[in-house]
């Protein structure tokens, strides 16, 4: 296998691992927070439905965590196995957040184990709630630290290169790079948003399937309220991210928006196709890109004409950007209509077709996560460290990457199918109605 093929297969394998991992990782970041909120509401309202909600989510969460942990281990090692030159260089500057991420992960792992196995040991639910805080904090902080590493790859700083040597290294400046605030905030907000939508989809699915239990209604209302909050947060932070790109990574924004020429009063293109350097069939919103980039109608936005041909990312990232934004907007509207509709008593939000939309929202939010990450990552091509190290110079020289790609693809297939089968079996065999009955019998026996 030649060098070019090694680079190609390394990229495919990394993309495959990450695309698979982020499904579980995103859920892994968001769900502990949702469990914590449900547990807290359960205690506050003294409503056992919410406590049970927390428990059932936690039980399913274990399966997703397991897959998240093992695929996370895989990508952690693959960074060194597939990109040894990158890790050698970046390790000098960015090892600190990587290292801290493992601490956060450690912390979460310990308390998740304790939480899961002390369900019946603490009579006091408040104590049990306390155990959830480190789980949720650990999960979110591992996302924070690992996103800092990714932000560094987009905006490397905190060192000087003199004659090929790294000097004046400052790990903290590397961590607090300009890409970091928007990236971290967007990753967290969208992870919470996605988890809330996935959980809402489950509740809506049960209601759609004929259950009319109050438990599912409470679950749906709670998760849709959370979805709304985090959708709005994601959109606001997404706008900041656009402004960040205009300032620091204009080639990514220009490629995403098909902004070919540098100009003022820049319009925004939605959808469309690119033919022979012309944008066709697109919805053109005048001035919108100038507003997105610089909050001003007339601001000048840098176009692709300012960059050498071999330093611009592939133009197909426009589609990814559109998918992400369209889904984001759609889900924000959907959750807003549901929450307002439930509050005002509009009957259509209880209709089957509306619940069908909510069920689809779970899948859509995950698609948006994938599209968003692909956009962010492909948008930084051809660099692995923007402006410093090109992707093709960072890959391994080993000749067996194609074989490893096959092996890992098989692994992810098994894990994907396995987790779906186990999760659906787990909940189908033990529906909430049955579990509530069991608990009543148990408690009745105890108090009599």
């Amino acid at each position, binding site marked *: 296998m030649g060098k070019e093929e090694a680079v190609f297969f390394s990229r495919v394998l990394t993309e495959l691992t990450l695309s698979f991992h982020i499904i579980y990782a995103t859920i892994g970041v968001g769900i502990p927070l949702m469990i914590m909120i449900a547990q807290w509401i359960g205690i506050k309202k003294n409503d056992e439905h919410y406590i049970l909600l927390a428990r059932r989510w936690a039980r399913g969460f274990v399966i997703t965590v397991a*897959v998240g942990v093992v695929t996370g281990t895989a990508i952690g090692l693959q*960074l060194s196995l597939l990109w040894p030159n990158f890790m050698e*260089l970046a390790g000098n500057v960015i090892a600190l957040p990587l290292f801290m991420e493992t601490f956060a992960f450690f912390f979460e792992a310990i308390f998740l184990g*304790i939480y899961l196995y002390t369900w019946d040991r603490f009579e006091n639910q408040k104590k049990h709630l306390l155990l959830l805080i480190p789980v949720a904090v650990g999960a979110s902080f591992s996302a924070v630290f690992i996103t800092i590493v990714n932000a560094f790859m987009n905006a490397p700083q905190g060192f000087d290169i003199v004659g090929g040597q790294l000097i004046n290294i400052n790990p903290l400046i590397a961590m607090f790079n300009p890409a970091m605030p928007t990236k971290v905030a967007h990753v967290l907000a969208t992870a919470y948003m996605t988890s809330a939508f996935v959980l809402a989809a489950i509740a809506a699915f049960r209601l759609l399937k004929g259950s009319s239990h109050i438990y599912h209604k409470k679950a749906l209302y709670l998760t849709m309220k959370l979805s709304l909050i985090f959708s709005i947060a994601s959109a606001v932070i997404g706008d900041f991210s656009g402004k960040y790109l205009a300032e620091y990574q204009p080639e990514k924004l220009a490629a995403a928006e098909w902004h070919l020429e540098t100009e003022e009063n820049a319009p925004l293109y939605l959808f469309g196709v690119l033919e022979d350097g012309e944008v066709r069939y697109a919805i053109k919103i005048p001035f919108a890109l100038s507003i997105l980039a610089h909050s001003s109608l007339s601001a000048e936005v840098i176009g692709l004409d300012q960059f050498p041909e071999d330093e611009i990312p592939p133009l197909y990232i426009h589609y990814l950007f559109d998918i992400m934004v369209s889904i984001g907007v759609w889900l924000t509207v959907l959750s807003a209509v549901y929450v307002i509709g439930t509050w005002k008593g509009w009957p259509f939000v209880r209709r089957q077709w509306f619940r069908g939309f909510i069920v689809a929202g779970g899948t859509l939010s995950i698609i948006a996560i994938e599209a968003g990450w692909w956009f962010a990552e492909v948008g930084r091509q051809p660099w692995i460290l923007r402006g410093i190290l090109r992707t093709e110079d960072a890959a391994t020289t080993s000749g067996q990457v194609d074989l490893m790609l096959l092996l890992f693809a098989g692994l992810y297939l098994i894990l994907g199918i396995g987790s779906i089968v186990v999760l659906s079996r787990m909940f189908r065999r033990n529906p909430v109605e049955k579990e509530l009955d069991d608990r009543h019998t148990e408690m009745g026996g105890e108090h009599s």
Partner: protein
Amino acid sequence: MTLEVIGISVLWLFLFGYVLVASIDFGAGVFNAYSLYTGRKHILTNIIQRYLSPVWEVTNVFLVFFFVGMVGFFPKTAFYYGTILLVPASISIILIAIRGSYYAFETYGSRGHMGYTFMYGLSGLFIPASLSIVLTISEGGFVTLVNDHPVLDYWALFTSPLTWSIVVLSLAAVLYISAVFLTWYANKAQDQNATELLRKYALIWAAPLMITAAGIIVELRIHNAEHYARMLDVWWLLGLSFILFLGTVWLIWKRKKYGLAFGLLAGQFTLAFFAYGISHYPYLLYPYLTIYDSFTNEAMAISLIVAFIAGLCLLVPSLWLLLRLFLFDKNYVRGRVKKEDS
């Protein structure tokens, strides 16, 4: 003590932590599968599940911690080991992934698939074997530089007696450590049958452990004379380790003080592990890479050590809580659920 030595000591300590907890985990899977095969599943399964469930994820973190720390403190190892280990490390990852997810699927999802249990047990043997390859490679002689890029000679690696001795040693160690620990755990659970069975396994695996350990020292003399000479310098550590080993076997034989027996075992492996590590000094990959020429810059080293100390302040109490709740809690170990406080 220089920053380099602090760095490698910290990492060696975490690697040791992984070896200890992962051995218990891997060995438990093997014994579980074996007892199923011989129709004695009911004897061991409960004990093993009760111990493994709350800790399996923590075990994984020790490994992640080690390799992330390695690249952090010694970024050049990413270049050397990253390039040559693509195949062996990928196989290890895949096995670990199947094993970890299977455990969760089986425990929290559905129970009792025979085929999976065997796979789980087998992977417990293959993972230590595939990971111990790294130790062999680090002795040198299997890697050459071609156009400044390291290339691994698989043929030399797989035909070397040193490779196979290290593989056998790792397997014997896994089974021995696991059996001794589980004997203690089963005894605490007052599970007579499980204790007896595991005690037998512990005694069976003690002999191959010592034979291979001695064999490796002899083979090192031929393979890497420098390492052998340095090993002789620390002969007293190895001797002490051997005395602790005798103590463990004696206690297990006499059915006395299983807790102390496990303590002696931990001491035995600590001494042997550090004697091996110290004699390996200063090489990370003989003869290309020492801890000095691969070490990160001073600013990063200091911030990593600060992060490490801060992290330990969080971790040690948390780990202590975990052990208190699941290892030193008599009611949990015996499988009884007790309501605490109110």
